[in-house]
Structure formats: C-alpha cells, structure tokens
C-alpha cells in the first residue's frame, strides 16, 4: 500500500494554494487526507503534487452571521459534531457528523474535503442538499456561489472547476418550527452509508408540512434530492401513513447501486425505510 511518488507543498495562504493549483493542472488539494491518501495508497489516484491547505489560517470555523451559518472548508467532522452552536441552530450537521467513520476519522476528515470528494456513500452530501446549502468556490479569478443542487454532478465529480478551492459552506438558519434528522445504515466494513437520508422539515403554524427538503446518499452514483418525496410531504399534516407513502418515492427515477452488501432491490427498499425514519424523526423534532 505505497503510493506513487508525489511532491508536497504546504500552502501558507489561500492565494498561494490557488497559484500552485493554477500552475499544476494535476495537483490536488490535501485537506484531512482521509479520502485522498487511501486512494493514493491503492494507486487509484496518482497526483504529482499535493497542496496542503491544512495550515492556512481561517479555513476552519463555525460562525453565525446575520441568520447565516458559515462553516470553513477545513472544519473537521469532530468540530462540527461537538459544536454547541450547531446543536442549537442546525442540529442536522452535528448529528450527521457523528455518523462518519470513527473518532480518528472525525478528527482528521473535513467537511470541505468530503463535499469536494463527493463519494457516492459519503454522509455530508445528503445533509448539504437537505439544508439547501451554498458552497463558496474560490479561484484566482475570484469567488462564486454554487447551490447544493448544482454542486454534486456525478460519481466523485462536483461543480468545482480546475483551479478552484471550496472555501466555505453557507446555510440559512431555519425557524423554530423546523425539525431535522439523519438516518443511516452503516456499511459493516467501511462505515460509509449504505443508505443515508437527511431530512429537513419546516411545519406551518397548524402543524402541516410547509417545506420538506430531503437529501439521500449511498443509493446512487451521487447524492440527490428526493423531489418526489418532498412534494408528497408538502402541504398537509404528517402522519405515519403520509410519511410512509411519501418515503416510498425515495429512489424514484435514480439509478441504484448494487454491490455485495446490498443489491439494487434491497437498496431501494432501504432508501424507503431510512427516508421514512428520517422524516418521522424530523417531524417529531419539529413539533
């Protein structure tokens, strides 16, 4: 398990990192290294240059600014899991973080790395979609905002362009009638999501479902928004039957992965079960 040879530079500033990326087309950003290094050891990835952004100041933070939650790309899973602020204003994030890997992984891996990697079984993409997050991409030419729905393009492919670094994740704060939940089946070997469903619901003043936002990972080549589930939920009060009916659409219209652990049929079924569970838990928390 020895990687191919590569060069390594520790960038001191974002500009320096961007410049290095601009000069070296095949260079890769090194964040927590917990997806990239394993891939390199298997020689699935053989970047000639790693640009380490781990020591750049001000890429790791969790803050609230005018009703917006801002999370720096280098914030670790553990920092999110243990954030009292997030537990209060966006509990889906700490809950989701707690499902990632083990303690070591959570201490090294970053939200930015995970989102930029877009592993089809990674946990963050489901939450990012369910929270309607916006992602701040920066390059030599400046910054641009990408909506979560546009960010995950395909298997391990995102809207980030060559030379771009994901700098920040932004989430609008929700109101107090919002309930969130993450439900996951862990792969027994890797710990990644066989299925992971993030639900973010807002009820109206009568207890009806005003807004539903459901992100699902593990099921297909990339995380996706379960539009059919959302529309089946919106507009009426949520009871067990209503939730089950909506959840039945969890995998509508997606190409479902099948593997040794979970066939296509079983995964479809799991998507429905975990969607139901996530929605039920979110509904309860919203009420």
């Amino acid at each position, binding site marked *: *398990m020895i990687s191919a040879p590569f060069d390594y530079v520790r960038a001191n500033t974002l500009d320096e990192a961007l410049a290095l990326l601009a000069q070296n087309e095949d260079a890769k950003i090194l964040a927590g290294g917990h997806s990239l290094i394993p891939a390199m050891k298997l020689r699935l990835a053989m970047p000639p240059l790693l640009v380490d952004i781990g020591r750049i100041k001000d890429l790791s933070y969790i803050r609230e600014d005018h009703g917006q939650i801002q999370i720096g790309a280098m914030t670790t899973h553990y920092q999110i899991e243990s954030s009292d602020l997030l537990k209060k204003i966006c509990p889906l994030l700490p809950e989701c973080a707690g499902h990632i890997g083990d303690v070591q992984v959570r201490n090294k891996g970053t939200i930015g790395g995970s989102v930029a990697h877009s592993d089809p079984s990674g946990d963050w993409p489901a939450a990012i979609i369910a929270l309607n997050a916006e992602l701040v991409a920066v390059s030599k030419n400046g910054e641009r905002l990408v909506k979560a729905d546009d960010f995950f393009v395909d298997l391990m492919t995102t809207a980030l362009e060559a030379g771009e670094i994901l700098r920040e994740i932004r989430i609008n704060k929700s109101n107090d009638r919002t309930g969130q939940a993450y439900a996951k089946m862990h792969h027994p070997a890797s710990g990644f999501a066989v299925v992971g469903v993030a639900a973010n619901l807002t009820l109206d003043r009568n207890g009806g479902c005003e807004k539903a936002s459901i992100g699902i990972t593990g099921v297909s080549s990339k995380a996706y928004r379960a539009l059919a589930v959302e529309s089946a939920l919106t507009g009426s009060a949520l009871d067990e039957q209503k939730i089950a009916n909506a959840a039945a659409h969890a995998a509508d219209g997606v190409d479902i992965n099948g593997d040794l652990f979970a066939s296509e049929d079983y995964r479809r079924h799991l998507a429905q079960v975990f969607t139901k569970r996530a929605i039920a838990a979110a509904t309860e928390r919203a009420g």
Partner: protein
Amino acid sequence: MAAKYVGKRIKRTEDPRLIKGLAHYVDDVRLPDTLHVAFVRSIYAHARITSIDVTEALKAPGVVAVYTGKDIATTVGPVPCAAALPDLKIPDYRVLATGKALFVGHPIAAVVATDRYLARDAADLISVDYEELPVAVDVEASAKGGPVIHEQFGSNIAYTLTSGEGDIEAALKSADHIVTQRMVHQRLAPVAMEGRGVLARYFPGEEELTLWSSTQIPHLMRTQVALMIGLPENKLRVITPEVGGGFGSKLNVYAEEALLAWISIQLGKPVKWIESRRENMQATIHGRAQVGTVEVGCKNDGTITGLRYNVVADLGAYHQLLTPAIPTLTGLMLSGAYRIPAIQMNVTGVFTNKMSTDAYRGAGRPEATYVVERAMDIVAAELKIDPVEVRRKNFPAKTEFPFHTATGLDYDSGDYEAALDKALNLSGYAKLRAEQAKARAAGKLIGIGMSSYVEICALGPSQAMPAGGWESATVRIEPTGTVTVLTGASPHGQGQETSFAQIAADELGVDLNAVTVIHGDTAIVQYGIGTFGSRATAVGGTAVLIAIQKLKEKAAKIAAHVLRCEASSLAFEGGRYSRPSAAAASAVSEPDVAVGEAPAGALPEPDTEGRSTLTIQEIALIAHIAKELPPDTEPGLSATYFFEPKNFTFPFGTHICVVEIDKETGETKFLRYVAVDDCGKVINPLLVDGQIHGGIVQAIGQALYEEVVYDEQGQLVTGELMDYALPKASQMPWFELDRTETPSPVNPLGVKGVGEAGTIGATPAVVNAIVDALSPYGVKHLDMPARPEAVWKLITG
C-alpha cells in the same frame, strides 16, 4: 505448588511495552544496508505466463535485482506441506510462479531495491504477458469437473477421506426422523493486525543466515526454510520478534520467507519485505471454506442415533503447511458434546483458483461445532422440543469420562450439564423464553440461540501430529537469583510471558518479577513446536512445570549437602529449603540473598556457615560458584524438559445469545451474550477472559459480517478492509462470562486450553439465535454471514 500467582487475575507483563509503542515487530528491526523487496503478483486467477519483461524495472532508480520463477525453479525448494493423508495429491508449489499463475496474488516476480518505495515503483515497470485460462472458483463445481488446475492430477480432487466409527447406515435406519441440512462455512481471512513480515540477513563470512519472521513456529520454520534453501539447519537462526496476531495465519511456512532468505544469500545483504494489507488479503492463508450436508438421525425423544457429514473442502490452488489436514479436524469433532453411536464424515478436498486455506482460529473445529450445534437445533425444531432438552438428552454424564466418541477420540474430562445449567441460570433462560413469547406477540423478532460445544486442544500427542506434538522448556536460575524460562512454544499475544512466569514463580517460590520468559529465537531457545491449537499452556506450560521439578531435585540435593541433612527430609516452602528442625521454627530470621540486593559489581559470597535454611536463589549462586557442591554434581542450576502429552484435552462450555432482528432492514442486534466456558484449571482468569472475548468477536465476525468473496473470474472482491467486514468493538454485545473448572487429567497443571474456544463455541449460538428469531417465518436455516439483505429476503419471502 503454593498458589500465590496461579489462578490470580494478574495483568499481562507484556502490555506496557505494547501500549507504549515500545515493542519491536519485524518492521522495527532496522539494519544498515537493508534492501527491500516488492512483489509483482498475478492479477489473474488462472493464467499462463507467456513472458515477463523486467528490463525497465532493472533500469529503475535503486533497483538491485529482479527475480522471477526461472531464477528459483531449481534453487529454492517447494513450499512445504506437512500434512500426510492417504493418496494426497501434492502440487509442486514454487516460491515464485513458474509457467502458470494459479490465484490472484500468486507471486510472479520479486524486485529488490534500496528502499521500499523504489521497489514498489519498479514493480509497476515489470510487464507480464498472460494467457488467461478458464478458472475453477466454485468448490462444488470444481469437484465435479470444469477446468483442471493441476493437469498432472487429471482433476481438481486432492484427496477423499472417510472417517468415523459405527454402522452409520444402520444408525440412520434405526432413527424415527432424519434431518438433513446443507451448510456453507464461508471462506474467512484471519487478518492479523500485523501482517506478515520477513527480514533476512546473510553473513557471508560465517555462512550463517538470520531470519526475522512474524511467525507462530520459529523452529519448524528454521527446519523447513533450511531444507528449502539448502542451508545447514544449524547455520540458520530464526527470530520471532513481537508478533501482532497470528490466528493460525502464521502457523505456516510461506514462499516469501524462503525467497527472502535465498535473496539475502545471493546479494550478501539484509533484505526485508513487509506485507501490505492487500497482500495479506490475497496471499496469506484463508480459513474455513467448506460446503457440506449433514444428516442426523434421531428418535422421537430426541436421542441422536447417528450423524453423517458429506463435505467438500475448498483448499485453494496449493497446499500450505497444513491445508489438507484442516478438514480432518472437523471429522474428529463431529460428536460435539454428545453421545452419538455412529458418525461418518466423507470429505473431498478440492483445488480451486484461490489462495490456500489453512488453520484459522479453531481450524476445522468451528466447522464441526457449527454442523453439530445447528443440527441439534434443527432436530429440536423437527421434534418440537426445547433445544436445551435435546442437548441435555445426549450429553454423556460426567461419570462417563474418559468418554470415547465415534470419531475415535477419548474426551479427557467434562461436566457438560454443569456448564449448561450455569449458562441457563446466568441468562435466566426460562424468563428469556417468556419474554420472547411476549415480544413475538407484539410483532418483534427476538431469537434465543445456544451452543454447547466441545473442542480439542493441547495439540497433541506426537502420534497425531505431523511433526511432533510435544513442547519444550528450559528453566535456569541465574547466579543472581533471577529465573529464566525458555519456552519452545512461541506465544504471540496470548500472554504466556505472564502465565508461564506465574507457574514458575509459584513452583519456585520466587517473586513474579524475578522470572523472565524468553521465546522465539532458535539460537537461544531449545527446539520447540510453537503456539497453535490452544496448546501452549497445556503442553508448553507443563514442560515448564516439569523442568522446574527437575531443577528442584538438583537444588534439593545441593541444599541437603550444604545444610548437612538428607534431601528427602528437607521441606520446601516459599522458595526456601529448610532442615527438618528449622522448618517448624520458620525461616524468617535467616538472612537471604534477595534478588538485586548484591552490591553493584560484586557477586555475593553465600555465607552458609551454620544455616538451617537456604533459598533456591542462594542455591543457584552456590551451584554456579561450585565450591560447595555434593560430589559428582554438575555445576549450574538449569533443567530442560520435553513434555509429550498422552492425549488431547477437551474444553467445553455453553454460550447463549439473544438477538433482535429489525423487521424492516434485516439487521441483527444483540440483546444478551452469555458464555460459560470450561478450559480446565485457570492459570490467569484475566487472560482466559481476554481469549474468550477475542474468540467470540471473531465468531460473531463469521456469523454476521465476514466473507472472503471471489467473483466468477476468481477476482478477489473483498481485497481490502473497506469491503471485508471485520467485526468492530462498536458492533459487539456486552459479554457476560462465567466458567466451570473441570481439571484435565492429561497434564499435571490440569489445564486444557482456551485460545480458540470462543471462536468455536459462539458462531452457532449466534446463527441459532437468528434462525430462532426468524422461525415465525418458517425459517429453518440461513447461511453465514447473516447479512441484513439475506435476512430481509427470508422475512419478505
């Protein structure tokens, strides 16, 4: 023996260095000028190697040499198989593939370079041309026909063997019911945390070679590697530094060991190879891999009349050290904990295009226990009687030991009902069943499973072993009074540095800290067999005990001489010999030479004038100074003993497990896990609990998670720990442990062995619980691992 230490929960003296990261594994041994080896391994399961081009690799930076099959074909002997079975087909297993590659991971070329990274990079520059051949993957199909792996044998069948006693046909005919079940014992990977590793250093001047290897059997390896590379055995030294787990996977002699030894001789430099996890999954032995059908005859009241097991064993492409012998252990243990008048096993060993199978924790016994314990539950279900009662009905009574089985064994001692009853009490079995009924009525899937196992340990009498079943020990008391124990067993994590010290300290009446246990260096330790088959304490520990008894005979003679009395009249207590008159007066007032109290740089002169007592440590000093010895007495104080056991030992116990199955997902969750194990006399309860814990974890791994999967092309699908599901602490239940203690009459310590019990006993308890949980759906059996999808399918029909 005054038990100051034996029987106590003493913390492992090994642990501090392990916990602090101060232990030395093979990779921690760093020698100047070391060259590093990387392997090119077959990417196909079955292919003719039409050409190998190494030119680019030889030009790569740091590369010193590249070796392929043609270099070693006539210079390095084949990988050895020590198993002897009638008409066994033994293919020629060269250390690098010659002509054909027979499994994914089969070594084809070895690149030697000045560092590990350059070696690995250069390996990518070697181009191998293959002509792919049809593969034999499925073991049952390969037994019947299809592509033949070793053409010279005409088929893939390596051997067939029938074992057992009694008239099986008559026994089945006399039954009121016959139950039949096909069972798959899936292929498992041992996955020791430290993979294999070899460092070979040739001394051209001395013409000697030292081989550091992460192995369970340093002496057997020395003999085998010496033969393979044609070096006189006394010119080869094998050192086993710390070993990070073996589980049977290092009870072997591998191609890499002999090859590195040979390369070091060629190049006159140290060469090292440290296995990667991927290599570990591909090219370290696997375990289990049997597919069989059991037939059990029973009377209406549950009495078993006979058992037949027809099985094909997936051997892989070649024989490693014990590959074909493992299924024969299954045959030996098919009587389980029961009186079964007639037993027959018909086994067919089959070559497939996969890595060899061999001994993995339990080695053949888990398969037998699984067959028998699943069968007991199937009989119980067929007869609609409680699984407890079927078991109880067929147990031999404790007065029937030694108990002869129809597999040809004589179980040494046992009280199976006592362990069963203890487990029933501890679990609250009756209450559990009541709760289960309630939960079922509420639509929950709760299952209760049990397993009453017997296993075979302390391998074993030499008659039953391929290369000696004894074990050796040398015990010395050094001039300053410290005690050195050299054991031929080569513990690798089990804790014998602690438990053998406990035995020695008690027997010698010295402080535990005064004893050091040394193992794993063939230049220091007398020949030994090794640690496997839960034998180290029963056989090796006994050797320590008897060596000490021999040493004490001599010490007593010296004591008698110095104290001027008859040796037979001496009392020995608390490490002190006393003259008859002095024994009662107690010896506390006597000065003694305590360990470490001699002034720096000076060996104390024992002052023996007018003494009525002497410590054994003082006697050691007298024996070394050799001025006051009785006539015709050899100086020094040491003794060596090679212990040959008369029989195996047979630990047993009952495990009970309660699971809940998630109806929607098929996931299994543990509610309880109770284990009552009897491993004979317990030297250190902490070590025994640790062995039971680890054993159960690996058993649960087999029941729920683990499977080495090769696809139809013979590609290894589970090549990494991302895919191969090792059990994790977070998935484990709380273990509620208890024990009974039935001494073994086979050795003076009364110990049986515990290294594999958990792995043997627990798997069927878990599967029985799952099947019990699913019984409302008419489920009678389910193959392992019980993946959620498989369970879900049984629920949804």
